[in-house]
């Protein structure tokens, strides 16, 4: 009897607390989704806007591939100082380049392009497989990590931009690039260290045209 009274008292007390401090609210699903999305960073929309409003208008900033490759061949460290961007988040750095080359070979993940760098050809790999890394986000210098208090948001931009490359640029290359065809491209390259700069340079295309 004493025990039952105790349990009942606890339950009544809990009920009173819950009356003034409810444990949950039941709301319409649509309202809940609206509230959940309010203030949440939408990386997909951001990447889409960034692509059309900033990235496509920044091609003038890309360095000529011939100039860049020649500079890297001459002195990778000087080329890095002059042309590369670094976010200081890791040891790697990025190049933003434009150029034209002839397709030497194709495989599932890349096209091998020969770029004439004045007398000799230098090979560049244009990526056509799954896109990983932060080349597109960080290569242009248009986005700064310090503008994003949440690093997860900043990382999600990279993932969304890579998805856009896969959806908007790569299908055309995969379908129509053949050995011997000429491709003009604008893209970004992520380099881990100087020794692998031209090994070959791995370029993620932002725009590519087969001629």
């Amino acid at each position, binding site marked *: 009897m004493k025990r039952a009274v105790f349990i009942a008292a606890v339950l009544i007390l809990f009920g009173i607390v819950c009356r003034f401090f409810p444990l949950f*609210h039941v709301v319409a*699903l649509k309202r809940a989704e609206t509230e959940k999305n309010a203030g949440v960073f939408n990386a997909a929309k951001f990447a889409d806007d960034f692509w059309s409003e900033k990235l496509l208008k920044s091609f003038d900033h890309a360095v000529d591939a011939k100039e860049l490759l020649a500079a890297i061949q001459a002195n990778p460290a000087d080329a890095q100082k002059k042309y590369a961007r670094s976010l200081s988040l890791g040891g790697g750095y990025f190049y933003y380049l434009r150029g034209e080359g002839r397709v030497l070979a194709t495989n599932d993940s890349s096209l091998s392009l020969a770029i004439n760098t004045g007398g000799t050809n230098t090979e560049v790999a244009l990526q056509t497989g799954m896109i990983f890394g932060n080349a597109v986000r960080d290569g242009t210098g248009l986005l700064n990590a310090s503008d994003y208090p949440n690093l997860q948001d900043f990382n999600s931009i990279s993932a969304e931009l890579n998805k856009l490359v896969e959806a908007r640029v790569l299908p055309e290359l995969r379908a129509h690039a053949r050995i011997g065809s000429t491709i003009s491209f604008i893209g970004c390259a992520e380099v881990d260290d100087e020794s692998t700069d031209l090994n070959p340079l791995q370029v993620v295309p932002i725009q590519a045209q087969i001629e």
Partner: protein
Amino acid sequence: MNANAKEWLKRLQPLIALVVMVVALSLLSDRFLTLVNGRNILLQISVNLCVSIGMTLVILTGGIDLSVGAILAFAGAFAADLLKNGIALPSMNVAIQFTPLGAIVAGILAGLVLGSINGIAITQFRLPPFVATLGMLSIARGLTLLWTGGFPVTELGPSFGFIGTGFWLGVPMAVWISAALVGIFYIVSQHTTLGRYIYAVGGSEKAAAFSGINVNWVKLRVYALAGVLAGVGGLIVTARLDAADPKAGLGYELDSIAAVVIGGTSLNGGRGSIFGTVLGCLIIGVLNNGLFLLNVSPFWQQVVKGFVILVAVAVDRMGTRKE
């Protein structure tokens, strides 16, 4: 020295060890004996204290619970996700949005459920506690990863964060919570029927059963309470970080077992106290803090901690053998 004095000396061993450590560290570092550092130590041990209270009850019955760290992680992640995302019920076109209090209750209930499953596995399926709770360790870790998708659940808000980062009367809320739990479970262990049964079961399960105690009933409650207390620890960790990390609580089971053993609770069960566990947590906390202040490498800190545990168990064994 008469037997009574010897018994008292034995009980006071952890306290003497703590006092010696405090005095030694005060002499070695002028930053040790300050109010701010004292508050830091209390804050740092608060989670281990919550978990260790449950572990004390389990060990007093002669059992062991290896799943407390994993339950801690699941309870934190469960509460955080409910608070952040709620539960959508598309078939009814509604969603349940949890308040911070609701999330806290849900986290504690998650601990209760997982702890009870431990108890059921041990009492109904006769699994050794080591095996049952080892299985639960893996289950709870897996559930945590499934529930969170392997990613931390972040930005839980200041209301929820208050239990981990808030202050009341200049003392961190986490310390108040752990102190309240110490008070409650001191009373439970020393002044209630359940407490007496726990000691009886740990002293001799057969004798307890013969004297009419429902041993399974006691064990089930003890493991359920250990789950609840791990859940509270998980809520504090999550609130302190403002994020539920699926990998939270790794190794906490060992820290709590260490605190319980250093505090004088016998691994054979039937002997020990909540007060001893508080001292055990303080000893570990003071040791970690002191070694850190003395710039001792974290690798050496692990070695020293292990050594202290060995000494504590050895002293306990020697005492038991003499008896």
